[in-house]
């Protein structure tokens, strides 16, 4: 197995790079979109609230593959070309944002209502109270599950392999086909993923224990 790795190290690392890049990009944008959707769901405006709810429910209940294929196969047919990496990353972003919206929303709602009331009665506006009082508390509650979503994101980034997205899974595939030594190749790919996900997983478990809300 070591020789296999050394012979193809450049391919593995190339894929590793793209996996990380895709995951980080998707994380940043899905956090932004997800948080926005969470806030919209709690808005006073009925239309905004329902639109946000629809967005979240829709993207949480369809497979990631379909979202990615939409960007890779459908849109280009109508003039908007996306390559494998782009389609995969955008798909990942949209898909994850729906889950993050749910996580952040329940985080915000876990913050005692009294906080919002106190803020408003102290003269802050709704958005100011959100920004300075509610959201900071919400984020602490929400970090461990968000960490979980990031781990899911990294795992889901393997979807790039299905649209020639040049990621770790795609490269591993190419190596497996070229050498026919599928067993060791996929073990190596697995180890690469574990390097990313296992530490995060243990970190989140640790944080969860430390920040446990005393009930």
């Amino acid at each position, binding site marked *: 197995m070591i020789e296999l790795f050394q012979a193809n190290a450049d391919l593995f690392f190339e894929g590793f790079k793209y996996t990380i890049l895709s995951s980080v990009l998707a994380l940043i944008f899905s956090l932004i979109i997800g948080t926005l959707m969470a806030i919209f769901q709690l808005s006073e405006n009925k239309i905004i609230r329902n639109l946000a709810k629809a967005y979240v429910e829709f993207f949480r209940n369809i497979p990631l593959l*379909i979202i990615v294929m939409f960007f890779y196969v459908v849109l280009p047919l109508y003039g908007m070309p996306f390559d494998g990496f782009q389609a995969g990353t955008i798909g990942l972003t949209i898909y994850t944002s729906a889950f993050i919206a749910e996580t952040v929303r329940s985080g915000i709602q876990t913050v005692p209502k009294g906080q919002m009331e106190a803020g408003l009665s102290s003269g802050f506006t709704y958005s100011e109270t959100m920004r300075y009082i509610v959201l900071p508390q919400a984020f602490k509650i929400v970090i461990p599950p968000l960490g979980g979503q990031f781990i899911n994101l990294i795992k889901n980034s393997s979807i790039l392999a299905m649209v020639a997205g040049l990621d770790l899974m795609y490269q591993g*595939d190419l190596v497996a086909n070229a050498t026919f030594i599928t067993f060791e190749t996929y073990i190596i790919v697995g180890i690469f993923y*574990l390097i990313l996900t296992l530490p995060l997983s243990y970190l989140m478990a640790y944080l969860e224990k430390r920040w446990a809300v005393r009930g």
Partner: protein
Amino acid sequence: MDFIGAFSFVNLRFLLDGLQITVAVSVLSIVFSFLIGGLMGTLRFANIPFFSRVLGVFVDIIRNLPLLLIIFFTYFALPQIGIRFNIFWSAVVALTIFESAMLSEIFRAGLNAVPKGQMEAGLSTGLTYVETMRTIVLPQAFRSMIPAIVSQLISLVKDTSLAVIISLPELTHHARIIYGQNTNYVIPMFVAMTLSYFAICYVLSLLSKYLETRKYNY
């Protein structure tokens, strides 16, 4: 885009065949992984020296790997050490392995959430460990686990689409075959796939909300 042609009787029947496989794989996987995952979660909770720890590491590793990799591995790599499944069973086995690991964690968390006093009370009343688990702890743990379990089931249904990579003849695969033979069918097929998955998953999520609010008589 040609909706009429895309949804001809022949094509619809082909799609339904695919949907049948999607449902079959999902149901088999959830049943097996419920049993295996439940067992593993309980064993981890029971804290058997050394064994629970190794099981724990095993579960953590599976949970942190992409499902796509596990599917590949089951169909393409396992035969190299003598374990061979056909396409259908490879998908079921791969999904079961992954979901068992996920469910084992849900079980463990659910069991941990039950107040320790329950176990102590049961044991001090003369029940054995297993009996206490079975009649007192597990039922209570179960109630809190239901949303998480249904959520995993929803993920499972969506994840069956990943098995196209090993040519599992499920919904997504059949839809692809149809639009692969005629570009005008691309959008209709996407609509069909999206609606089908959404319908199943959304209904399941409503079921979950219903089960959550139902009052349990204890």
